[in-house]
């Protein structure tokens, strides 16, 4: 077993690795990350995750629900650290997995992956407490500077293969009654379907967009946890044969942009993100800052953010950005949502939040978003390394179809097995 595998094993057990090993790990991680572009291209299938915030035991629950690395491909949208008790264990484990399985896991930067933020919101304190010095904090911050700013998911399937619930819950009907294509599915942590939406299969490429947009149910869905509502909301009778030519349709699925916060008024195309010099502390303003700090809001255009960094942006901004870039969806994290995920703006953007019962008190569930692989072309998608989505005629943005989306919702991990540690020396105010 290699040192790396041993480190993974140790971290999975929630035990820290020695400082010298952290240093080595961070060095290797930087070597790897420096090769990545600002916007990493990722092929479906992939599972997209939001904020973790040091909730290590909940991260283990996430892997239990979503599948382990490397069996499942993961894309984490930042905010690994701060606030929770186990930022070190969480981030170092993810970093080990990144180094061990670089093609299986993608880490992008959140606004908390920053020197200034971590000195305010806890990670710095945690490093001092657990390692006795700021060295490990410094190594981690150097890695933060190399994390990508975003990712583009390519080759996601427009439809989902319906999940067969493990249980014999007969109230759950997951089969589409007619040829409606399964568009969204929400599963609880037992793998039971609690909610689903359908859209009709398209007859031909010409009416793809209109059919799916006009007939699909509103996509601002956000199913309450545990609420078993096997809704079959696809419009009956509108789906034609659907068989036979499905492949041509599903390959039209637009790309998905993943970024921690949101959009920036300084960024009108994905390519502009690629031009940023990202290897630095997160600036207080500018495009890089906005990508990590902004939030969608029910406004028109751009607005000031109450956070004091980044902006608020409305549905018109998202629609235009997606249209111009051939995107079907922006996936982002950054904001607590009680149901774990929240689609907004007719499904143009989704917030994914992966820290259940955030800060031990918020009572929220967490979610991860699975995008399936478009099997129609043999499971391979040409990596386009930046060419994708340019308005070069290859992709007609008007015909972009959103990907099928499977949300797995989960709750905080059980805590009763964690023993009470001895008390640590107190801060020097009390000496």
């Amino acid at each position, binding site marked *: 077993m290699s040192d790396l595998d041993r480190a993974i094993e140790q971290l999975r057990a929630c*035990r*820290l690795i*020695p*400082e010298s*090993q952290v240093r080595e790990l961070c060095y290797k991680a930087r070597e790897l990350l420096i090769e990545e572009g600002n916007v990493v291209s990722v092929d479906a299938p992939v599972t997209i995750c939001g904020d973790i*915030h040091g909730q290590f035991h909940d991260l283990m629950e996430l892997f239990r629900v979503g599948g382990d690395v490397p069996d499942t491909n993961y894309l984490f949208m930042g905010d690994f650290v*701060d*606030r*929770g008790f186990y930022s070190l264990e969480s981030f170092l484990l993810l970093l080990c997995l990144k180094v061990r399985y670089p093609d299986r896991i993608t880490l992008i930067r959140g606004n*908390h992956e920053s*020197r*200034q*933020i971590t*000195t*305010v*919101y*806890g990670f*710095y*304190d*945690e490093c*001092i*407490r657990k*390692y*006795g*010095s*700021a060295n490990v*904090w*410094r190594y981690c911050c150097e890695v933060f500077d190399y994390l990508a700013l975003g990712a583009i998911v390519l080759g996601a399937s427009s439809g989902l293969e319906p999940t067969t619930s493990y249980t014999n819950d007969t109230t759950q009907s997951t089969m589409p009654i007619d040829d409606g294509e399964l568009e969204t599915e929400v599963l609880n942590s037992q793998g039971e379907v609690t909610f689903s939406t359908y859209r009709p299969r398209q007859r031909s490429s010409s009416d793809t967009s209109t059919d799916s947009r006009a007939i699909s149910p509103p996509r601002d869905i*956000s199913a309450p946890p545990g609420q078993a509502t096997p809704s079959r909301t696809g419009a009956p009778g509108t789906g034609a044969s659907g068989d036979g030519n499905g492949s041509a349709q599903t390959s039209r699925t637009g790309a998905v942009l993943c970024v921690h916060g949101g959009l920036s008024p300084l960024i009108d195309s994905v390519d502009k993100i690629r031009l940023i010099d990202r290897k630095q502390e997160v600036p*207080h303003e500018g495009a890089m800052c906005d990508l990590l*700090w902004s939030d969608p809001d029910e406004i028109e255009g751009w607005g000031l953010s*109450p*956070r*004091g*960094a980044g902006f608020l942006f409305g549905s018109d901004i998202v629609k235009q950005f997606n249209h111009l870039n051939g995107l079907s969806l922006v996936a982002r994290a*950054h*904001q*607590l949502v*009680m149901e774990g995920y*929240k689609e907004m703006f007719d499904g143009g953007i989704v917030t994914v939040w992966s820290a259940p*019962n*955030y*800060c*031990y*008190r*918020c009572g*929220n569930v967490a979610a991860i978003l699975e995008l399936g692989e478009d099997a129609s072309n043999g499971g391979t998608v040409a990596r386009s390394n930046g060419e994708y989505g340019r308005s070069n005629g290859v992709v007609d943005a008007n015909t972009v179809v959103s990907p099928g989306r499977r949300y797995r919702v989960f709750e*905080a991990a059980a*805590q009763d097995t964690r023993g*009470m*540690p*001895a*008390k*640590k*020396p*107190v*801060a*020097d*105010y*009390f000496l």
Partner: protein
Amino acid sequence: MSADGRPVRVLPKLDPGAPHNFIAPVKRIHDGQDVSDFLSSKAYTDIMTFLLQLNRSMFPTKIPDGAAQTWPLGTDAVQFSAPVRQLQGLLSKLEDIVEEVPPDTGPRRFGNISFRKWHEVLETRASDLLREFLPAELLDMPSADADGPTAESELKAYFLGSWGSGLRLDYGTGHELSFIAFLAAIWKLNGFPKADFGVEERAIVLGVIEPYLELIRTLIRTYSLEPAGSHGVWGLDDHSFVPYILGSAQFSPAINESDLTPEEGSLPDAPDPAGITKTNIVERERKTNLYFSAIGFIYDVKKGPFWEHSPMLYDISGIRAGWGKINKGMVKMFSAEVLSKFPVVQHFPFGSLFSFDRDPNAIPPPTTVHATSGPQGRPAVPDAGHGPTARPNVDAGTKAPWATAGAGTRAPPMGPTAAPWATARPGPGSTMTLPDTSQMPPGPMAPTRAPWASTQAPPPPGGDAPTKAPWAK
């Protein structure tokens, strides 16, 4: 010693006969340097003086038969003056607004949007409420300059700052600070009757501050207010600080009027600090003690192991030197982690009652690398033990605030750029000067290869719950 022989200062009141000019309060703290100026300002001295005065009053009092008169919540040994009862009436009116504005049942992120409505109602009614519950002669106290504002403009600013943010749907120690300033402003304006030391102070703590904290807890639960600037598990408490100061005083050793404020030891029948992890003890003590009422609220709202979601309080519960020790530490920590933190104090407005002018007796605080947001040097605490005009000696900046000349223990000297807990020795290759605590003894949670490791940083308190930029104005 204060002028009357008591080892703690009392916040001076305005001379009703002397002309005074009120100033509509405005924000003065715009960057890290402004925080340093604040720490040398008259406002900082006044706030700490008032807080220490309240703190001192909550220490049990020696009585002639050798026993101690304690000051538990709900005691009938404390009489509430008319102004205190009026303030209770004011708080009760605010609680009524909660009934008027039920939480929104629609979809939400976390903070309930109805709190914005609660805040709007509060703002709409603030002037009328103040007029109903505070004396007109106090509110209408004029400026010497004919076109200057009245006292009301200053009082209202601190009153309105006490109830969290309607915009961000959060609440934190900065709002708590504003309420303390509101009470201190009334004190300065002679709004509380003249009495022996401790009489009005105890009535303010038990009769006003505790109901205030309860109302805040109601607001937090009703509207799911986020912790302003939460450090998650790495802060003392998501929302509050003051109850930990005043509650630890309640359990500290009994004192005479002339005794120095104890720096260690406990009242003989006070519960062990370790009791905070035992729910039966918390349930018993929270009814009468401010520290435990705050701990009890944590249990009400948090799920999970206490040591994990509140490691700072857990560690403090291991202190063997008594509640007096905890009390002393809490005061120091309040000064360093609330009053010295830009994200917390940036919203505090300054007028005439809390003046940004330099206090001629202030000790300049150490300058630090993290002047705007991060771990920061401990500021000078007003020299509460000295006479009002005593010129503190050079060590006074690191001295316990209640220390009298010769009685205080000297804190270790600190390098100018060190964080408060630092042993001041930057690690190799550091670009920022950060503490190296490698000299500290090992602790049980240290990783296997770092046997020397231990010690933790003091938790930075409060902030904003969707992460606010620390540099945000």
